[in-house]
């Protein structure tokens, strides 16, 4: 069974097509990067994959079911810049939120152990009792990744995980994403993600150009290169 299936997906917002005829599949444990310009529809696509928006036309399946039906299989990592830093909340409180589920009101000992294990794995255990406000951008992003992983998801979906983070922090986050042994779908404006071991790349600018296989295959697509990659890759690599 495919982890993600997107078939003839269209999305219209206020009479304007934001996404048109998007098609792709992602197999279990594959790593997909979704890149593209701002306003090109990346975030809309992610919201549809998470079940927050309904497609105007077409179909999206996560492990064979609609995103809403299979939401608990998803570990979602939003941008760390989305949240208020004033809330009195510790790193441990945030990570534990990943263990919440329907019908569960209190955390068990097992939940706490699992959260500690993930914090250790991500090397942020020492910040466990710190207020989220007192962490750097990269550390905050790691906390959100820890919260997604503590759910024990089959797929993680990340929204701009390296934005507003210093270069060293970005490298650490990308290393971490690369090392995860699960299906990964990462929306990123930062095309440095293409240097990583991605299995598939979707370039979204209303329509999607999907590339499979090693990164070096990417530049052969002129449409893809001329918009985004010209500053990133050498001209001859891009073939334009």
């Amino acid at each position, binding site marked *: 069974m495919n982890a993600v299936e997107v078939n003839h997906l269209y999305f219209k917002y206020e009479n304007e097509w934001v996404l048109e005829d998007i098609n792709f599949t992602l197999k279990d444990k594959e790593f997909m990067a979704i890149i593209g310009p701002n306003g090109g529809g990346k975030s809309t696509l992610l919201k549809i994959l998470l079940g927050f928006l309904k497609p105007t036309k077409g179909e999206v399946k996560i492990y064979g079911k609609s995103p809403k039906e299979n939401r608990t299989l998803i570990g*979602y990592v939003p941008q760390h810049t989305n949240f208020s830093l004033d809330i*009195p909340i510790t790193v441990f409180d945030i990570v534990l939120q990943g263990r919440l*589920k329907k019908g569960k009101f209190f955390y068990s000992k097992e939940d706490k152990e699992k959260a500690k294990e993930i914090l250790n794995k991500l090397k942020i255990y020492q910040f466990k009792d710190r207020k989220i406000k007192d962490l750097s951008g990269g550390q905050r992003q790691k906390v959100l990744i820890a919260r997604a992983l503590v759910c024990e998801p089959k797929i993680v979906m990340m929204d701009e995980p390296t934005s507003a983070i210093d270069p060293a922090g970005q490298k650490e986050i990308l290393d971490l994403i690369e090392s995860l042994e699960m299906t990964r779908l990462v929306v990123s404006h930062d095309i440095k993600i293409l240097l990583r071991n991605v299995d598939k790349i979707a370039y979204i600018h209303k329509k999607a150009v999907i590339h499979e296989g090693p990164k070096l295959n990417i530049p052969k697509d002129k449409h893809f290169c001329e918009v985004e990659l010209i500053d990133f890759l050498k001209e001859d690599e891009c073939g334009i």
Partner: protein
Amino acid sequence: MWDLIQTSVYAGILLSIAIGIIGSLIVINKATSITGSIAHGSFGGIGIGIYFGINILLSTTVFTLILALILAAITIFYRHRADSLIGVIWALGMSVGIIFLNLAPGYNADAISYLFGNILLIEKNDLLMMGIIDTVLIVSIILLYHRFLAMSYDMEFLEIRGINAKLLYTYFLILTSLTIVMSVRAIGIILILALFTIPPLIAEKFTKRFYQMIILSGILSAFFVIGGIVLSYYFDLAPTPTIVIIAATGLFLSMWKK
């Protein structure tokens, strides 16, 4: 003196419990304008109660619950225009109240007392209602603490975990409206917002965990309210503004801590 102010001191303690819980949720959810809208809008329920000669507590409760549901829908479904629509509900509720008061015969001193409140005039019956609402708030926060905290931090993530965050938010606004109803006679519509937000705003700066914020804002609130009652009694001042001035002074003093 104690005989004269003991009921208001008990009321102040019961109010402080509510402010600790609901006030902290209001502050961390950035729901101050929604709370203002429910509080001011509740004047509609008061006007309706006076005009039709029905129990004001009942009419205000029903009216504010309706407002809470409308505001929950606005916040959830019209997020991009929520700010303006919240302002509309604020003015609409007050307008309904003013229209019905104008239509009601005679001078309505009751309406004025609800606008400005007076904790010194609280009666034992009011304490019972405050106690019941405090019990609902305490049970709710114990049972839903982790969900409320997760909702306040990241509503979308809570939805992904299979929990109906929109319903939870609506429940939070229902609790807010009940707390407003219980506080109106003591604090008054106009100054309710200040007392609901100042103690949690101070507590937020000095605490690391949300439950600590709830406890500290409850303690601060009790300190401000009882301090205000005593000062207003001795100096013959209006109690609610005295309480708010003490609380605001506390807030400004706390601002040294960034």
